[in-house]
């Protein structure tokens, strides 16, 4: 609730912020949004929605209560009740679906659709899935709640806007009110009398009424909006997707993001390799050739004028420098590309880890038993975990030997990096291990550290075989190596 209100205020202020920025802070002529809400289109759409909410609430409430109780009553009488309950549940679902669409387009809300209805085969299956459909029951609950919500929004809107209109205009039309005897039964009073016998006809009263009208009109859009925020919460919870399907949705999109990032990195690496790197090599090669040619020329024309020689020597020195720079650039681009996506990973995690271990300053033995092969993004995460952990061994452990063990255990990939060093590794905030854990968590992996002071240290990383724990039912062809790992066309 609070969040929604904040969000509302944020979005309301958002419209004024750019203007303030444009005019600069010196021009403080910004009208607070509180006073301008009434003029906006949004306030009128919300008023209309608040008014319509009452009939919808009454209709929905009556429909729900009647269908549930009538079907419930019929269950006792005949077996017609259960199918009726099922069918009306589906009807509630349908109503909820369309009312949500209406609210979305009416008020600009963005409440997602609930998961679609899936009926089991056969009449009984269909009945059963109707009765078990959470969305149908949530829709019913929404329409029951919609009645108090509808009453609240309708009453709030009518009362506040009516007071506003009445107070603002009373001074003008009160003189045409029907004639009314005053307390003494003498004069004809054309005004509104109060419960205590006072009359609303003096100038200060008129001014007070105008003031009350203005205040009511200023408050009205915000009061309506606050009640609609409640409606929105109810709709989000009851007409939107259930939290289980929301989690599945998020998992799916997160897995997509992880895979997409891995593919993008791989493409960048390839672009560096095939574009930049190839050009640099060609450049260095040509400089090398030019150097050779000048050197040969110098050897042949030995004994020519001194100034020619000096110029040649200068040129050679410059070429030497250019040559060295080009070669440095090649090495740098190579390291950069390897850090982005080690190309040897394409040949498999076992091959890549073997190469990694060969680079390690501390002798590391690698054992692998990987079958089936994880997806590329998981392989990348496992590879960089192993690289980081091996670096840690070399930097901190004072170990004599390390081991890396990677194997598939059930539907998980387990990476275990151990050393016989001094131990005492821990997960400090901002430390390397904490960073690893964050990376692993993007795919619901786990990192456990076992490192008592004095050693030995064993760090275990568990990853799913695919970024998405419940993979799509795509057939996996035998040559998926070339399918998954082929070039990004």
């Amino acid at each position, binding site marked *: 609730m609070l969040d929604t209100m904040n969000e509302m205020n944020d979005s309301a202020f958002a419209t004024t912020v750019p203007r303030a920025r444009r005019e600069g802070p010196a021009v403080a002529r910004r009208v607070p949004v509180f006073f301008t809400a009434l003029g906006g289109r949004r306030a009128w759409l919300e008023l209309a929605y608040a008014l319509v909410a009452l009939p919808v609430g009454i209709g929905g409430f009556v429909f729900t209560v009647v269908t549930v109780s009538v079907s419930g009553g019929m269950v006792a009488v005949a077996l017609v009740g259960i199918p009726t309950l099922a069918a009306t549940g589906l009807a509630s679902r349908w109503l909820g679906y369309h009312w949500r669409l209406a609210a979305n387009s009416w008020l600009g809300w963005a409440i997602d659709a609930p998961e679609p209805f899936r009926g089991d085969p056969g009449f009984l299956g269909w009945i059963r899935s109707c009765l078990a459909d959470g969305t149908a029951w949530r829709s019913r609950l929404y329409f029951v709640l919609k009645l108090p919500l509808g009453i609240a929004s309708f009453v709030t809107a009518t009362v506040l806007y009516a007071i506003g209109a009445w107070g603002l205009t009373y001074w003008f039309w009160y003189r045409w009110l029907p004639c009314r005897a005053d307390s003494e039964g003498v004069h004809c009073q054309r005004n509104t009398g109060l419960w205590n016998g006072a009359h609303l006809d003096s100038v200060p009263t008129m001014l007070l009424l105008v003031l009350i009208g203005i205040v009511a009109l200023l408050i009205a859009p915000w009061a309506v909006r606050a009640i609609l925020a409640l409606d929105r919460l109810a709709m989000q919870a009851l007409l939107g997707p259930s939290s289980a399907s929301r989690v599945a949705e998020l998992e799916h999109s997160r897995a997509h993001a992880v895979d997409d990032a891995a593919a993008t990195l791989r493409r960048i690496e390839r672009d560096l390799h095939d574009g930049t790197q190839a050009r640099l*090599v060609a450049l260095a*090669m040509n400089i090398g050739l030019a150097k050779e040619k000048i050197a040969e020329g110098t050897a042949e024309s030995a004994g020519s004028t001194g100034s020619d020689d000096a110029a040649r020597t200068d040129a050679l020195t410059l070429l030497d420098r250019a040559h060295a720079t080009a*070669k440095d650039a090649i090495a740098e681009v190579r390291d950069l590309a390897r850090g982005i996506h080690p*190309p040897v990973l394409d*040949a498999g995690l076992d*091959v890549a880890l073997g*190469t990694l271990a060969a680079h*390690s300053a501390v002798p590391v033995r690698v054992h692998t038993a990987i079958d089936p092969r994880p997806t590329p993004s998981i392989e990348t995460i496992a590879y960089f975990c192993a690289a980081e952990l091996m670096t840690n061994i070399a930097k901190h452990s004072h170990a004599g030997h390390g081991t890396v063990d990677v194997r598939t255990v059930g539907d998980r990939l387990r990476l275990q990096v151990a050393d016989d060093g001094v131990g005492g590794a821990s997960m400090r905030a901002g430390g390397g291990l904490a960073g690893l854990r964050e990376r692993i968590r993007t795919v619901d992996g786990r990192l456990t550290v076992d490192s008592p002071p004095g050693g030995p240290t064993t760090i275990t990383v568990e990853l799913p075989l695919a970024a998405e724990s419940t993979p799509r039912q795509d057939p996996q062809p035998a040559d998926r190596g070339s399918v998954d790992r082929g*070039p990004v066309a």
Partner: protein
Amino acid sequence: MRIMIAEDSAILRDGLAYLLADRGHTVTAAVATGDELRAAVAADPPDICVIDIRMPPTFTDEGLRAALALQRSHPAVALLVFSQYVETRYATELLANPGGGVGYLLKDRVADVREFVEALERVAGGGTALDPEVVTQLLGASRRRDELAMLTPRETEVLAALAEGLSNAGIAAQLVVTERAVEKHIANIFAKLGLAASETENRRVMAALRYLQG
């Protein structure tokens, strides 16, 4: 020498062809994929092929697979494999099948024209040319570190140079010692590693490498 080039980057392919022609060699074909290379070699076997490891369509180890296939189908053709990266696995696969000359160099080495052409000629002559980085990695990856640890630092240097494919004279020049000293170091290395010294340079290198691969 008759040379074939398989390299997918046009700028590098043309550059290599120009460089080799300039050094007096004949480039019989310059192709962009492993399949084209195999077809070209089958049609007209050259003395040596210069092959980029990463080529279309998969951009992974196309060139290496083409090289391994050529080792079997055309053992007489020398192979110089080129890569942007040094990967231990690739080197061991190439060396596991000692036929004719084999080389595995980082692409950077093209920049030093003279050394590159020398390595090429060595491989074409049935010798070996390994990038110093490859040798370092093979030494690092060796499963017999304990035995290698018995070597003196100087002997390790000599072993590395020897694995690169250098002759005794080459090693002597690189380490700035006499050839006589190099011979003595090599004898010590073989003794410590329990290898019988043999007369040809290539077998010597291969023996050392196979030992390093464990």
